[in-house]
Structures are given as C-alpha cells and as structure tokens.
C-alpha cells in the first residue's frame, strides 16, 4: 500500500504549489479578488470553498457509477449548489458578521470554475479516497492563495492582520490595497512573483543537474 499512500500524498500536495488552482491554473478568480480585502474574509471564503469542494467531490466520487454521462454536469451543479446553500445558511447562522462582509459572494461559489472543474476532471474518474485527497489539496491551495492575497492586502491596506494592529496605529494605510484596483494589482504582482520563483527554481535545478553531470 506504500504506493497508494504516496499517491494520496501526491494528490494532496500538488494543489498547494505545483498545480495551485489560483497561481498556476488561474481558476476561481472572482471570489479570489472580491473578498480578499482582509485575511479573515479570505480564510472564511476559503473554508466555505473547501467545504463545498470536499463535500461535492466525496459525493460525486461515491455516486459516479450511477450518474449517467449525459446529465453529469447538471448533477454536479445540483450537488454543488446544495452544498453552497448549506454553507451559506450555516455561515449566516453562526458568524453573521463574516457573512455580512462576504455577502453575495458565498452563493457565487457555485460559479467557481475550479469546483466544477475538479468534479469533471478528477472526482468523477477516481476513487472516493483519491477524490477527497485531491479536493483537500486543491482547497488547501485555494485557501493558501486566498490567504496570501488577503494577508498582503490587509497588512498594506489596513496595517493589520486578522484585525490585529501590526504597527501600533502609526501606519499610514495604503487604501488602494483594499479597493478593487488593489486586488487586481496585488494578484498580478503575486503571479509575477510566482513566475519568477518558478523561473529561478528551474535555473537552479538546471545548474545542479549540470554540476552533477560535469562532476560524475
């Protein structure tokens, strides 16, 4: 079973960096930008997405044999919409303040291409176990991306992180960061940074390989 455990692990971590849904696949942009003006909102949105993705992946993988191909998309959407409604009401009941901030963007999780994409591309073709692993990994990557963006925007835009003041009140906030343009610009620059890191890493790996070749 070592192999299978390895695979579990692979499915889990690929979403965080290598196939990160936001930074690499550029999916799920709408919630990504709209709600990341603070880290709290970003995490809440990420968690709601995680709940929906894992739940629907589990169901889709479980029932994949019973879902005829012709209507699979409709079924996926019904499943996803159900989970989103559940998440919406739960959040509204439990943390109304956060729900007020996220507002209309919770229902919009339905339209997040990443979720439907995972059902179509992965959950409907793999075992329940792998599907859940994949969903967890992808969601983790999504949460990571949301958090990165939310944290950057909150720190620069409000001088705080998770509402905790970081600069003792003496910070001049960069208001653009919590405004829409800040969302676009920050994500653009983060993607640039991501490209740059990947690029540097490739160069580094190439150099290592070269050194090994010449060394041996």
């Amino acid at each position, binding site marked *: 079973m070592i192999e299978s455990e390895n695979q579990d692990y692979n499915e889990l971590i690929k979403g965080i960096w290598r196939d990160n849904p936001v930074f690499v696949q550029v999916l799920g942009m709408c919630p990504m930008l709209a709600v990341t003006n603070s880290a709290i909102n970003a995490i809440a949105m990420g968690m709601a997405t995680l709940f929906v993705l894992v739940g629907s992946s589990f169901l889709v993988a479980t029932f994949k044999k019973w879902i005829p191909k012709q209507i699979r998309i409709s079924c996926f959407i019904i499943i996803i919409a159900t989970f989103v409604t559940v998440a919406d009401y739960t959040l509204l009941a439990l943390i109304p303040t956060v729900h007020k901030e996220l507002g209309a963007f919770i229902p919009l999780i339905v339209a997040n291409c990443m979720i439907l994409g995972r059902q179509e591309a992965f959950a409907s073709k793999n075992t329940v176990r792998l599907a859940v692993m994949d969903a967890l990994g992808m969601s983790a990557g999504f949460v990571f991306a949301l958090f990165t963006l939310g944290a950057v925007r909150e720190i620069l835009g409000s001088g705080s992180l998770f509402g905790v003041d970081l600069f003792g*009140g003496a910070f*001049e906030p*960069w*208001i*653009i960061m919590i405004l829409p343009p*800040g969302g676009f610009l920050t994500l653009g620059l983060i993607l640039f940074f991501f490209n740059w890191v990947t690029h540097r890493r490739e160069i580094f790996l190439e150099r290592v390989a070269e050194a090994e070749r010449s060394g041996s």
Partner: protein
Amino acid sequence: MKQRDPELLLQHAPFLREGKTTPSVMVDVLIALVPATLAGLWYFGIGAFLVVMASILGAVLTEVAFISKQHRGESLLDGSGLLTGLLLGLTLPPALPMWMAFIGGAVAIGLGKVIWGGLGNNLFNPALVGRAFLLATFPIAMTTWTTADESFWTFRASNFDIPFTYTEIDGVTAATPLGLLKFDQEVTPLSDLFMGTTAGSIGETSGLLLILGGVYLFFRRDLDWRIPVSILVTVLIFSGILGLFDAERFPAPLFSVFSGGLLLGTIYMATDPVTSPTTPLGTWIFGIGVGLLVILIRVFGGMPEGVMYSILLMNAATPLIDRFTQPRVFGHLRGDRD
C-alpha cells in the same frame, strides 16, 4: 583614390532625416515645463522642490533598477524617466510627504512603464498611473492643499514624515479653486487662476506659464496641436452649454479651462505621443473624449477634479480609437479596407 569598396556601408534609403530625435523631443518638453515648475516652486516654496525631487528620484531609480542592462544606456539617455518624474511631481500637492512622492515616482515607472517593456510600449501615461495610484492609496494626503502665499523657506513638517507612518498634513490648508466651487460655491477670480496664486498641485496653478510652455512646444513642433485644441474647445463648449441651463450652478467656460489640472494635463500629458492615438481623426476623438469626461466628472462626479481620470480612460480607449480611425488609404474607396 583610395580603394574603399570593402568599407562601403550598405545602409538603406532614405539618407536624409528631419533632424528631430526622440531625446530632443523629451528635452523640449522639459524646457517647456521650466517656467511652470519655477512658478510652482516660487509659490509653494522649498517643500514643493523637495516633493518634485523625491518624485524624480523615485522614477529615475526605478528605471535604473529594472531596465535590462542592454537597454539601460539609451533609456536613461532619452530622458523620459526624468520627464515622467517631473510631470508626476508637478501634479502632487506641495505638502505631500516626500516618501509618498518617491513611491509615486517608483509606481509611475514600475507599473506605468517597466512592466510594459519600457519607453514606447506603455499604453497608459506613466505619470498619471503614478498619480492615480497615489490618489487611491493616500486620498487624504493627496487632497490636502496648502496656500500659495507662504514664504519660500517655510519648511512643512509633513514633507519630512517618516516613511509608512501616519501623516497629518501641515501648513495652512486651503481648498483648490475647483473644490471651492464644488463644495462651497465660491468662484475664484480668473486673474488668480491665470497667475497661479491659488491652492493646488505644484505645477498646475499658473495658466499663463503652462500655455507659454505649450506655445513653445507648438513652435518646436513637438506637440500635436489637435489634442489640446480639441480638449479645450470641448470643455469651453460644454461648460458654455451647461451655463445656458444654470449659470449659477455650473462653472463658467474660462474658469473650467484655467482651473485645476486641465492645462497641465492637456498640454503635457494628454499629448504624450505614446499613449494618444496616432491617426489625425483619432486625436480629435481622443481630445473630445477627454474634454467630455473632464466636464462629466467635474460637474456631475464625486470629485472636484477629473483630468487625470479622463486622460487615463481615454488612454485605455486609444487602441480602439486607433483601430477604427485608420485613414482612408490613398486610392482606396471608403469602406473597402483591402
């Protein structure tokens, strides 16, 4: 006679040049800005000088840091980074902390120019990208103005604020003529606008000197006269028309032209060749668009001033304008493109 065949060059025609070069155009614009800059420094004192210098420094350092090595020499030589820094500096309020001006210069070159691939490739005016960023980022500091009549050596503490810390603008605050009109229904006399003894951005207050620079550029043929003419005429006509409805409420045509950053933006920024249309018809459309947006934002919008946004919006529309205003090619009938 020397046998020079192997040394013969094989460059292609044409061998004659009109004589203008891109750096000479930049230098001309810099020269044209000198009177307005000096007037700004005269009215707003040493603090204004520091703000302009910080902005130029931010722009030039960013340029040096990011432009690839093989392009470095020429892009520093062409003086465009310096010009961007200066133009941005002239649109800033005199009491702005220097670090903000520096960041503005850096953003202007970084987001406005470097990521597009350097001079000639950007689609938005870099100085205005820098200013829009600053205005959205530090809205209070960017809209707190000081009076123009303090002594030259008045140091404003806010100019020296420690970077990233909370800013309280210092000095006698005052409203710009446009702000006075919009929020207090007070009309500033035209002579003040003409001479520049009003509150406002460092380089925008003196209509006379700005026009002087424009005339210089016109005679040096560095300026597409259609753009300033179409903007100013549109503004005049539309404020005239609005005035017919309610002369009390809407600004008078000449006031509209001489107040705020309209002249600075019109003469030096809207005419930025890189970000304005290349086709003659396109430049008219561009100018009329800027003029309409200026009046729309100033009169009906939430802010007293809208020149910067108008130019940026028309910059965004420039690729479309250029595309749909290609002149009729000689010998082609209208309508068939090939």
